[in-house]
């Protein structure tokens, strides 16, 4: 197995908005083997409060041994993390979980809401690297322009066009991301790669099911260990029983999950 625990140095801190931060970490052993949809568990401080590591998707790797995470400050752990300084070190476990299974034979559509956009950048890059006939479509949603614009710029840098939706209409479609999705010509056999809030993922899955598109979703659950040891991170499966989002996921075939629609 290629998971490791690494002391990583913070190379750069970008404060994209007042509460969205991008960290660039120097972690050659993680960056070199990570694949899109995988995540890391980061210790946010050195004391026992908060006690547990926090999971973050890998949002990009670089060939010089760096990777990035993109996160929003929502509680104490992310708050602590947002106060780190360049040059400081963070303890990181990773890469963890099984990521998106890229199906090069099918047209791809990346669908991300809020911080769920994070892993899709990595995925978009990888899909392009793999070489495809058709450039993936990208549909992103967030609360407003302030949040969404910097994330869109990342995709633009890859040469991907983004179809946007915002809750307040300040950028792209005023409303739901699924409205945008429905308006696009995704082509037959499309595979959607989705990450975002649960209700959004449910809506995207419903749409995909009706169109017979493939649908892979990255789910978020509370996690204590991130490596299959605590059995805390379960998601109900359609066949009964539970999957473990840290080891069986976080990316699941939407078909396999039990959705409360």
């Amino acid at each position, binding site marked *: *197995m*290629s*998971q*490791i*625990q690494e002391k990583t140095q913070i190379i750069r801190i970008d404060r994209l908005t007042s509460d969205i931060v991008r960290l660039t970490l120097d972690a050659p052993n993680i960056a070199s083997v990570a694949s899109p949809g995988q995540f890391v568990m980061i*210790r946010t401080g050195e004391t*026992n*409060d*908060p*006690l*547990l*590591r926090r999971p973050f998707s890998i949002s990009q790797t670089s060939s010089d041994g760096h990777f990035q995470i993109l996160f929003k400050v929502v509680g104490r752990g992310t708050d602590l993390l947002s106060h780190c300084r360049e040059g400081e070190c963070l*303890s990181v*476990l990773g890469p963890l979980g099984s990521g998106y299974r890229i199906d090069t034979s099918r047209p791809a559509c990346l669908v991300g809401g809020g911080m769920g956009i994070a892993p899709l950048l990595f995925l978009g890059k990888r899909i392009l690297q793999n070489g495809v006939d058709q450039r993936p479509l990208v549909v992103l949603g967030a609360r407003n322009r302030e949040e969404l614009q910097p994330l869109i710029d990342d995709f633009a840098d890859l040469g991907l066009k983004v179809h946007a939706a915002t809750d307040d209409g300040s950028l792209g479609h005023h409303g739901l991301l699924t409205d945008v999705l429905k308006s696009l010509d995704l082509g037959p056999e499309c595979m959607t790669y989705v990450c975002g809030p649960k209700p959004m993922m449910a809506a995207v899955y419903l749409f995909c099911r009706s169109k017979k598109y493939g649908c892979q979703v990255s789910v978020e*659950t*509370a*996690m*204590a*260990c*991130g*490596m*299959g*040891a*605590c*059995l*805390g*991170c*379960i*998601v*109900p499966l359609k066949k*009964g*029983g*539970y999957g473990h989002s840290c080891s069986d996921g976080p990316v699941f075939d939407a078909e396999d999950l039990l959705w409360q629609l």
Partner: protein
Amino acid sequence: MKFVDSKTPAVDLQVSIGSLTLKNPIMTASGTFGYAKEFEPYVNLHRLGAVVVKGISLLPRAGNPPPRIVETSCGMLNAIGLENVGVDRFISEKMDSLNGVNVPVVVNILGDTLEEYREISERLADVEGIAAIEVNISCPNVKKGGVAFGTVPEMAASVTKAVKESCSVPVIVKLSPNVTDISLIARGVEEAGADAVSLINTLIGMAIDHRSRRPKLANVIGGLSGPAIKPVALRMVFQVAQAVSIPVIGIGGIETAEDVLEFMLAGATAVQIGTANFVNPRASEEAVEGISRYVADQRLQSVRELIGGLILAD
């Protein structure tokens, strides 16, 4: 996988749990170390004293619905609901890889009835590679209105007896801290033949989300573990070590070699590291390294000199 650290001084770290000799007193706690394999990327498993695997029941259990875990101040609550593959699949699917890791394997077992405990033990009795059985008696006895086996000395004793009769490996009884007098339970299981006691299991706790006005765990209540409970665990280990003459295995909030020292001074012969494995997957191996260095630095004849070495008078 790294090579064994040849700089670790050659010191005597051996301790005995009944007829089982461990090369050092550091074990991992049930439910926090999976089936050991999960930790292979991080830990040289063969350097540990022993690993205790996730609790096994007679039949497979799906466990509780989510959410199952929630963080609390310096601790966490879990209500996994004892999800496990059941004793038969455990033997057929998990023992092979456990035998491969070259570390004594302690199997933690649980049941709803006395008969279940007995039957699991019987099935495990002849399985190659099981170093000891640890009996989790914090489970509710369904035939006694759901009162936990571990809260009544007689019930705890009868579970112990049933398991002892069914297998020949050392039997460790894991005590519940949710009792008025844990020494009483410890003495009960000692008399019933336990080779050792381990403590503490989790304290029963609860967390509420004031926004949704709902419990944070689907199961409403859960087990509290982590550094928050260390003072309670240390006190109970101290009390039980004075009450019984079988070895005591200390558990609760242990993170570092210093914590291990404290538990051994309080009277523990060995310890188990639980929640700390999540925070630092190398915690167990680092504790072995730390204890090893300590015994060398202090020029102790063996780690056993520490057991119960707390100085009380002035």
